[in-house]
């Protein structure tokens, strides 16, 4: 048995782990759940020697152990498959399985690798997973799901007693997930203790015997999966109780008046698995769901940032295949990404230059936004959005987060869009700025814009949206409207079991 006792880890001002106790028992699959930033990754990294905890101990069979590197952890039988499939792409399957622990000849022969032994060991590890594969193939030529299994085979090649899988299903499709799970069940039968980190509710109930939930670096609870209702699990994850009376999700699909944007059956491998969405002019529709449920992915697909594999998108009643953000912009779509720093601001440019970039992109480089036009536009937007900046020529990096966000919103408003796609527009900005952004969204909606609003704060969705589409495991599973749009009902819909008929 592997156990964490009172683990604590601090990164600067952030307490990533706070007195976490966790037991990983042999012959059991433990589902580790938690929202973004709950501390799952930190916990895993402590257990695998990539981080050293500031306080607390890790015990193997009751004896405290010290892990300085992934090697130490492996030596003690703790194997990890990390979230991004970390294999060496241009090395063969056999090599990847044995890398770092190759069988060697003695020093007289230069300590050379016994390649035949390497292949035999790789074959043995793969056979344990029921996988027949040419071990001489290069890993980069294999599909992701197979690479995932190869990574597990690598983890098993040592005498692993504990197997930790960090979000192993995030890039797999349905069949591949089932295949992985049957492998895990087989290993559980062999007596391995297995930890699966995931944020897919259906999947955790499909595989886990016990579920542990982290929130804000603390262990909020651990319980047998069979005795933990979904609603309670979700409540533990988001830190709020669900009022039982409100636990009813209406799912009648009444078509709204003339949709400005309408999507049917959006699918994208590893991201979306059937999302329907309509939003009319003058309407704000919220997207609710847990982390990884497909909220951001839906917006990115609508905006053409990630191509869809299947599905139809209609803008103002006409079908379009949106293949690029440029195409989306020409159709009057605007997308505010959740990654303000990475996808949004141009930090060293002025507020004014940041404001005009989208408009300039829409016009193309031949029709320059003139100096006078830019100045007038900037002044108008700064005033109407109440952006607090010393002047329009101040570098945007000097503004507060809330004001940067307003600039980004204003940037899109300059292009005169018909549909606004907002991904977590209030994340990381102060309360006053939040209220401003929400008020702004309301006024834009009243002016006739169609708004799709993604937020993990359910109150915000309830306040800003007349209708909410609930996503679970990358599908749209329910729609709430009118009085049903309240946080408890949204949570109930997020937690509902798939058999409950909540699917559209």
């Amino acid at each position: 048995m592997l156990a964490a006792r009172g683990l604590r880890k601090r990164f600067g001002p952030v307490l990533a782990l706070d007195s976490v106790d966790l037991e990983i028992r042999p012959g059991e699959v433990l589902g580790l759940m938690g929202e973004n930033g709950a501390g799952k990754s930190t916990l895993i990294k402590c257990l695998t020697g990539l981080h050293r905890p500031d306080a607390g101990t890790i015990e193997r069979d009751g004896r405290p152990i010290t892990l300085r590197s992934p090697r130490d952890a492996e030596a003690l039988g703790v194997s990890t498959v990390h979230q991004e499939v970390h294999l060496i792409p241009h090395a063969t399957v056999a090599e990847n399985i044995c890398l770092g622990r190759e069988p060697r000849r003695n020093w007289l022969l230069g300590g050379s690798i016994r390649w035949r032994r390497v292949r035999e060991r790789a074959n043995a590890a793969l056979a344990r997973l029921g996988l027949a594969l040419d071990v001489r193939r290069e890993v980069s030529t294999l599909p992701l799901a197979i690479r995932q299994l190869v990574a597990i085979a690598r983890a098993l090649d040592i005498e692993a007693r504990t197997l930790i899988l960090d979000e192993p299903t995030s890039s797999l499709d349905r069949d591949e997930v089932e295949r992985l799970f049957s492998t895990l069940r087989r290993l559980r039968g062999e007596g391995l203790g297995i930890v699966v980190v995931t944020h897919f509710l259906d999947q955790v109930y499909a595989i886990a015997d016990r579920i542990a939930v982290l929130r804000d670096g603390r262990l909020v609870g651990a319980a047998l999966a069979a005795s933990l209702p979904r609603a309670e699990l979700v409540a533990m994850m988001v830190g709020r109780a669900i009022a039982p009376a409100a636990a009813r999700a209406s799912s009648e699909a009444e078509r709204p008046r003339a949709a400005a944007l309408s999507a049917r059956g959006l699918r994208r491998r590893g991201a979306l698995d059937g999302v329907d969405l309509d939003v009319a002019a003058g309407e704000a529709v919220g997207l609710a769901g847990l982390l990884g449920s497909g909220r951001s992915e839906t917006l990115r697909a609508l905006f053409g940032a990630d191509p869809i594999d299947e599905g139809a998108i209609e803008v103002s009643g006409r079908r379009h295949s949106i293949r690029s953000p440029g195409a989306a912009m020409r159709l009057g779509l605007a997308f505010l990404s959740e990654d303000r720093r990475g996808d949004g601001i141009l930090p060293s440019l002025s507020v004014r230059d940041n404001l005009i970039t989208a408009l300039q992109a829409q016009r193309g480089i031949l029709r320059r936004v003139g100096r006078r036009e830019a100045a007038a536009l900037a002044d108008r937007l700064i005033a109407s959005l109440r952006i607090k900046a010393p002047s329009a020529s101040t570098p945007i990096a000097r503004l507060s987060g809330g004001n940067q966000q307003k600039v980004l919103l204003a940037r899109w408003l300059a292009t005169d869009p018909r549909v606004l796609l907002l991904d977590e527009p209030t994340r990381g900005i102060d309360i006053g700025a939040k209220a401003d952004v929400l008020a702004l969204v309301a006024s834009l909606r009243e002016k006739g814009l169609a708004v799709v609003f993604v937020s993990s704060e359910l109150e915000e969705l309830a306040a800003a949206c007349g209708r909410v589409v609930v996503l679970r495991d990358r599908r749209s599973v329910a729609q709430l409207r009118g009085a049903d749009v309240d946080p408890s009902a949204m949570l109930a819909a997020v937690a509902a079991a798939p058999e409950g008929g909540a699917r559209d």
Partner: protein
Amino acid sequence: MKLRPRDLPLLVAAIVLVTAFAAGALRYDHFASVAVVRNLLVDNAFLGVAAVGATFVILSGGIDLSVGAVMAFTGVVVAALVERGGVHPGIAIAIALALGAAFGLLQGAIIRGFALPAFLVTLAGMFLARGMAFAVEPQSRPIRHPFVATTLNESATIALPLGETSTTIPLTVSIGAVTFVVAWFVLRQTPFGRRVYAIGDDLQGATVLGLPVAATTIAVYAISGFLSALAGVVFVLYQQAGDPTACKGLELDAIAAVVIGGTLLRGGVGSVVGTLIGVLIYGLIQTIITFEGTLSSWWTRIVVGALILAFVAAQRGLERVGRRLADA
């Protein structure tokens, strides 16, 4: 054996080599002769040794710009120790090799320890080593010690009895050959060699898989430093002099040979066999241009430039094909 997409660049390079040699043999009399091949090997032995070092570094995802400068530094150190200090050439060579390895080790430790780009650190190393070479010997100094002139350059040769065209293989070529064989063994057959590939292929992955990334990186630069010094020694035997201005920009010739040999500049893919072919192609182009007689030797560079472009473009195309195969 099944042909893998990553082996294609190597195959293409081999075809280019054979075709170029055949073309030369058809066009010029006496081209396909033992003497021509021997000269090709003798004239490029030092480049070959340096290119092996560059192969290690490039496979690991790095770059070493200090090669030529370290070669020149090694040369003048040997010359100064032998001719001014009265040190036996054998000992002088050993000292020079140790200095080269230490220099590379230091560069590797700085790159890894301070997480600095290899380009910058080895650029600084290039200036440093070149400057030190001039500090030791402001001008070229011939080495007249009999151990170098006679023992190493005349006695330590291997006779090849090929009937009428029998010839001798000088020590410099033997050193080059041994370097290639040892490097092939280390890269292909030892865990250390596989780690060099792994960190060049996916550094983050190698870290998470628990490989000793820091030690491997530092060792790679130490190897490059050592092989630069060894290339410098080969150059000294070839020229019988230590010259602080020697081998300017040779690191770029070495990198060119590595790239022509099918090794990806971003690391993780390639082989020392490819590098050997790359060096031979490089030398062959020079030989052909010499035979042509009317062309200036700068034409070598023009052809090499064109070849690198063609190879890099072809590699990118092959990568795309490979990725499509993976997705299918």
